[in-house]
């Protein structure tokens, strides 16, 4: 297998195409498509595929693109789409339907700042607005990560123990439009990796039934409880499928949480997306100098939030700094909030939030060095520190 120069968008589109084709022995593939910057290339890539069984359906809005996926998934088709920013905001009503109907739809999200004012650059605020929608959310760091995670997403979503939709997220332009070295999968490998999609509650001629009828609170609370239970199973099932991925593709796939120099670190930085790459480089520089015992926890899996693993990795740290490319007005960075909630209990480290790259501001090594210096010099936590204002 050869290496290619591939953007994040290309990687997602390629994975979706192969995953869709791999379901030809079952009920095929359906992709509802509608363009929006910076994800348009993904759906354009998918539109190049002629699926042996299935269809690419161009529609008039994001709301309808997800609607197409819902209808197709109810029939057991492997269903996927992609969107960004305000497109997701408009799609929101149907996004919720996907998880509440337990349909294993996979959606690539190219993270872009929500408007107005209009801005096409990276900010995670778009996908993070769905954090309470019972979707699995995976944030990728490189094009290779997008290619691999997109394939794993189908396996995870369609696992009978899970049956939840998955968002595969990447920073707009920084990952979506940057060419990186990628080992792309072959159809034959994907055929082996992905079993035929089987939605247990799909349309069945012998048992016609209605989905989504009116329910009373007692039934609804049971439904929400099931969603909570399914989410709880995700980290272990993710690891199982990661093993299987290794078997088929002969390479590892970035984990739900990646630790970097955490063993002896007294100061740990929590990152996600492309900022993890920059932080890794900055940690290397600091470690080369030898004076700062800094480490990193790079989070891929935001929903479910891998609390146990994060607590374990940060157990020995005195200070934790969280870098957020998003801001929940009033509460600051959303990863920061989650980390503080995860670390609650006696004796937790000092936890400081940093708002880096909000609205698409560049997070360059200098920015990250400033964050590192700030945390190293701190004796107590304070309000989130804004970078770029």
């Amino acid at each position, binding site marked *: 297998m050869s290496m290619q120069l591939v953007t994040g968008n290309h990687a997602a589109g390629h994975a979706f195409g192969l995953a869709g084709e791999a379901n030809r022995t079952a009920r095929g593939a359906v992709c509802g498509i509608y*363009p929006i910057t910076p994800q348009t290339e993904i759906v354009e890539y998918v*539109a190049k595929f002629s699926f042996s069984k299935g269809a690419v359906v161009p529609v*008039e809005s994001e709301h309808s693109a997800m609607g197409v996926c819902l209808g197709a998934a109810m029939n057991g088709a492997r269903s996927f789409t992609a969107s960004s920013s305000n497109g997701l905001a*408009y799609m929101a009503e149907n996004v919720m339907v996907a998880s509440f109907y337990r349909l294993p739809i996979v959606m690539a999200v190219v993270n872009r700042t929500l408007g107005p004012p209009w801005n096409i650059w990276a900010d995670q605020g778009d996908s993070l607005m769905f954090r309470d929608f019972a979707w699995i959310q995976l944030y990728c760091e490189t094009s290779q990560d997008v290619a691999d995670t997109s394939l794993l997403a189908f396996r995870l979503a369609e696992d009978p123990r899970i049956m939840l939709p998955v968002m595969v997220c990447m920073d707009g332009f920084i990952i979506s439009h940057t060419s990186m070295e990628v080992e792309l999968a072959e159809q034959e490998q994907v055929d082996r990796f992905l079993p035929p999609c089987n939605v247990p509650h799909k349309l069945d001629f012998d048992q016609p039934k209605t989905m989504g009828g009116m329910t009373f609170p007692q039934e609804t609370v049971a439904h929400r409880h099931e969603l909570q239970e399914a989410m709880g199973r995700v980290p272990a099932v993710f690891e199982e499928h990661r093993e299987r991925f290794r078997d088929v593709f002969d390479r590892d796939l970035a984990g739900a949480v990646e630790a970097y120099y955490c063993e002896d670190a007294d100061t740990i930085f929590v990152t996600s997306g492309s900022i993890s790459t920059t932080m890794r480089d900055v940690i290397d520089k600091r470690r080369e100098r030898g004076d700062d015992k800094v480490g990193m926890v790079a989070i891929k899996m935001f929903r479910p939030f891998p609390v146990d693993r994060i607590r374990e990795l940060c157990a020995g740290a005195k200070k934790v700094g969280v870098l957020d490319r998003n801001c929940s007005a009033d509460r600051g960075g959303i990863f920061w909030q989650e980390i503080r909630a995860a670390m609650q209990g006696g004796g937790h480290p000092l936890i400081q939030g940093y708002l880096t790259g909000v609205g698409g501001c560049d997070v360059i090594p200098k920015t990250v060095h400033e964050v590192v210096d700030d945390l190293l010099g701190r004796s107590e936590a304070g309000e989130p520190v804004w970078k770029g204002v």
Partner: protein
Amino acid sequence: MALAADRPPLKARDYKSDIKPVWCPGCGDFAVLSAITKALAFLERPREEVAMITGIGCSSRIAAYTRVYGFHGVHGRALALAGGLKAARPDLTVLVAGGDGDGLSIGGNHFIHACRRNMDMTYIVMDNEVYGMTKGQASPTTDADWDRSKLTPRGTGIRPFNPAALALTAGATFIARGFTGDPNGLAKILVSAIEHRGFSFVQALSPCKTFRPEQMEWKKHVRGFAQPPTHIGALAAERLHADDGMSTGVIYQTDYPAFQPGGGEPGDPGQFEAEFRI
């Protein structure tokens, strides 16, 4: 503050902002900007009495290029927002502008209901039969066999909308089609549209030089409607049906009371609250 009447008359350029449009050279939308500003100057509308509401897309950038109240809204929702503004400020001249994607695709539902509601505003759709801002995908006015979009490489296979016919069916009370190759003619249409009391729909044929260069040939095919405007819907429908979409001018205009929310007898919240007294 000087009263509007005391000020020197404004010229078309006074309605343009200092922001340079990001449109491609040769884009028809330049001529729409020119026609709108000419119409406003002709009507001597004070700038502070005009609002320009737009959605998303190349053409929707026009709000920033005018020097009137502007609101660059969300994709497809300009008409809903304009309805709120007109309800709050019936005295304003409300112009709504956008493209065929914004208005007929993602915003199609708002379009038909705005026609039906018949509030006093002017809606200009710059129609180039393509999504320009996302780099050339088929829109609801694109011919079914246009195969140069990466999203629909085999064509859409779907019949296009006829925007004027759609407006007629949905209840618009002024319907016209203009061409950006004739900005003066378009400005005249816009003057009539703005003066019309009710919902005015103007389809401006506006070529996209970048993604639909063949539209530069439109100038060879565009001509005026052979007949004057009619107020008879069935007649307008017949003419639109027989037309190839390249005839310009006012097609249909009728008198029907413009809808303005509010008015009537004020309610009595006290009486309502009394029902809950214990």
